[in-house]
Structure formats: structure tokens, C-alpha cells
């Protein structure tokens, strides 16, 4: 069970190997990686800058992780979220869930992402080639995605 907020990139494969090393009780690992796209709503994106609320971000991610663990039998979980200036193709977020069986791992990974997107205090600012920055608006669909977990 771990939560990391960092500027550095991550290696999903290395994180999974670390998580499953010398364990034989894990039957399923699900990973989700979110990446920066070069286009948003028809506008080119050259830089995506992620601001966050140090302290609250980690606490909120831990609360979401604890909630996932009360709902599904997870052997391990990991959330890594990057901050700072990122470029198209860069990794933004990694969620890894491990369980004895796939259903719990799939569901918990989706739950973690849905809650992270609506609860963790991160804000994205996209900058186009012209240098004009714009804050990304929250999506109603992200809020609606939570309804299935209630």
C-alpha cells in the first residue's frame, strides 16, 4: 500500500515487479497508466503543468486507497501521481492493484482512478505552442463515474 507524489517519471513494469517480488499469494495485477495527450478539445497541447496541494494530496490519496481496501481483498496497491511540467507522451499517473483474483483487481483500479480524479487536489494547466495557458475544466462525466460506487 503506497502513495507517491513526485516530479520524476515512473516505470510501471519495475513497480509491478517490486510489488510482486517474492510473493506467491497474488494471482492478478492490474495497472492503469494515464499519459499526456498532444491534443485536448481540438487544441494542441505542448506542455501540461500539474499543480497540487502538498500534504492534502497525499492524505486524500491514502483515504481513497484505504476505502478501496475496505471494499476489495487487495494484497497490494500503489498510486503514483506526477506533478510539474509534462509533455505529450509523458506519464501522469500510475495505479496498480493486486489481488488473488482479477475481479477485485480490476474493480479496485477503476475505483481508485474514479476517486482520484474527483477527490485528489491536482489541477492541470495546458499550454499550447503559442504559450497561452488554460486551466483544464473538470468533467461532469468524472463526477457521474462515482455514482456506480455508491
Amino acid at each position, binding site marked *: 500500500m503506497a502513495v507517491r507524489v513526485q516530479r520524476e517519471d515512473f516505470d510501471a513494469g519495475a513497480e509491478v515487479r517490486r510489488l510482486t517480488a517474492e510473493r506467491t499469494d497474488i494471482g492478478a495485477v492490474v495497472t492503469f497508466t*494515464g499519459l499526456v495527450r498532444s491534443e485536448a478539445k481540438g487544441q494542441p497541447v505542448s506542455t501540461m503543468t*500539474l*499543480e*497540487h*496541494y502538498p*500534504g*492534502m494530496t497525499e*492524505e*486524500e490519496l491514502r483515504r481513497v486507497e484505504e476505502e478501496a481496501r475496505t471494499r476489495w481483498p487487495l494484497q497490494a496497491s500503489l498510486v503514483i*501521481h506526477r506533478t510539474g511540467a509534462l509533455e505529450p507522451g509523458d506519464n*501522469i*499517473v500510475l495505479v496498480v492493484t493486486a489481488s488473488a483474483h482479477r475481479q477485485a483487481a480490476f474493480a479496485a483500479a477503476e475505483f481508485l*482512478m474514479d476517486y*482520484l*480524479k*474527483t*477527490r*485528489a*487536489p*491536482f*489541477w*492541470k*494547466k495546458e499550454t499550447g505552442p503559442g504559450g497561452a495557458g488554460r*486551466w*483544464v*475544466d*473538470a468533467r461532469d462525466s*468524472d463526477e457521474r463515474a462515482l455514482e456506480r460506487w455508491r
Partner: protein
Amino acid sequence: MTRGTTVKLLYFAWVREKVGRAEEAVELAEGVETVADLVAWIKSRGPEYAAAFERHDVIRAAVDRRHVQPSASIRGAREIAFFPPVTGG
């Protein structure tokens, strides 16, 4: 809330840009009991605050690093943050 209570206010994303600062310590006015009271008081502090909090219905708040509703009490709070809906992930 008694007179003389100091709290740290934090602003993020476009709220921070419009206010023109990331954080400040303020002494709360008497009668400021809830997050909504605090927003109304902040808006009265100057044009940059009025502009930043003009769309106060979309601004979210956290008291001591927990999401709260506008009706939440700020009694005893040390740190109160204001920000747009979050967009991580």
C-alpha cells in the same frame, strides 16, 4: 469564533492566479463561522478577491486538508484552502 483568530488561507490554480498569491495568514473577522461566511468576507477584501471569488459557486474548499461543503464550520481551523474542481489523473 472569537476575535483575533488567525488562519492560513491557501489558493490553488486559477483562484491563486486571480488572488495573486498562493497563501496568506489572516485574522478572521467576528461572525465568520462557516466556509460560506469566509468566502463572503474574503470577497469584501479587495477587487482581486472579488474577481477571484466571483464564481464562488464553482470554487471548492478544504478545511485542514479535507474537502468540505460551504456550510461547514471553520471553528478551530488552522488551514483553509480554496480551489477549482480538481482535474488530476
